[in-house]
């Protein structure tokens, strides 16, 4: 997978201009593209036997590209479309049942991944209640499939259920 494809995907799906990723470089393994901060120290880095570098950014899942949870958390605030604001109750159902009904609404452009923005607590101003959790898969005509890692979904349930 190549850098151009990764940046283009984030632009087309989430409306994030490629310029936002200028300070970064990308590395790929068979199925994953990693995003790493560009650095003038690349000579040192290239001489080392590396286990891991940067953050996983995008994965190839079957024929589709999937943004990673950590990338959605880190870059979600830059997205202009395909971000859904989800409240505590539907989020709990999504995490527990793995799928909920979801009306398309104007921010979703079509089937594909959407970034989950938890509105919590709902009484706060928009800026303070935007928490980017990860991604879910939206399918027509109105299905939302949880794509948070299991540990994260369990954590969300444990954190939000007490109320």
């Amino acid at each position: 997978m190549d850098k151009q494809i990764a940046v283009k995907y984030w632009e087309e799906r989430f409306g994030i201009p490629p310029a936002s990723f200028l300070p970064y470089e990308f590395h790929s393994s068979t199925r994953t593209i990693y995003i790493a901060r560009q650095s003038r120290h690349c000579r040192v880095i290239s001489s080392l036997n590396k286990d891991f570098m940067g953050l996983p950014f995008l994965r190839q899942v079957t024929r589709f590209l999937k943004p990673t949870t950590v990338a959605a958390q880190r870059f979600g605030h830059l997205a202009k479309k395909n971000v859904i604001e989800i409240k505590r109750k539907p989020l709990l159902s999504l995490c527990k049942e793995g799928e909920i009904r979801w009306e398309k609404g104007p921010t979703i452009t079509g089937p594909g991944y959407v970034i989950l923005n938890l509105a919590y607590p709902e009484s706060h101003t928009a800026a303070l209640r935007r928490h980017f959790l990860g991604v879910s898969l939206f399918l027509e005509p109105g299905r939302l499939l949880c794509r948070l890692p299991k540990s994260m979904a369990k954590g969300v349930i444990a954190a939000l259920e007490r109320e």
Partner: protein
Amino acid sequence: MTQWPPSEYFYFIPEPEKYIEHLHHPLPPYIRINPIKAPADKIMHLLKDEGVFLKKLPVDFFYKAACGKELGNLLGYHLGYIYPQALTSAMPVIALNPKPGDLILDMCAAPGGKTTHMAQLMGDQGTIVANDRSFGRLTALSANIKRCGITCVVITQYKGEHFPYGEHFDKILLDAPCSGEGKYRIGRDGRLLFSISGRTNLPAIQKGLIVRAFDLLKPGGTLVYSTCTLNPEENEGVVDALLKKRNALVLGWNPPLRWHRGIDHFKGHAYHALVTGCRRFYPHEANSVGFFVAKIVKPKQNG
């Protein structure tokens, strides 16, 4: 009953009776907030809404946290907004003073408390090579780096004493494996908690690591050697060994917590005079894990 602390520690532990009394109480939880993931005010609001009471401390980004549940079960934790961490464990990082753009080696990095703290102070700009010899602990390190949303870290798995020579580093953190005496507590049944039995020769390992770390520094670069033990043989003794082998200097610095100078002798050994420039942090004074921090520089002309 527990024989702790050993009698030879009494001369350097300040107010040892207070230390002994303090050993019977659990240490309070502390957190560091991580603005790489979200603005500080948003993090604070979320934690408050999750029922966490925070007390500001004299160390940037650190708070004492009181909360009815495990910090690891908070939404703020899963979102990477916080890193639960001993207050005193910020001291080595503050001594190293990481800046955006630096090239830093974290020689014994897992599980990543100090790596992620440094990345945050660097604004996630520059490069941190986070190394650890233990494969198992690298999993926790990479999970913490991902959770904190950091992009400037490269992970390697070398034995520190064999870390390859190549380009040299601006700054190196050697948060060495140690006996962990600074974490010791005494349980209700009088037993010593958190003590590690079956020790290897830790000072020998630490001496090998510190010499390699020093040799990997650029001239003019800074090395911070730290442990969470009170044991002088793993602390001043290790810095003393470096000072005898290499042209190194120990720099004084002003920590934001109560501190004491390094000690100049132990069990009949007199240490190099420069080791008094090291900083000691005691559990009963900081109400956190005991720490030792040495800030070492390699002179520009290293003869």
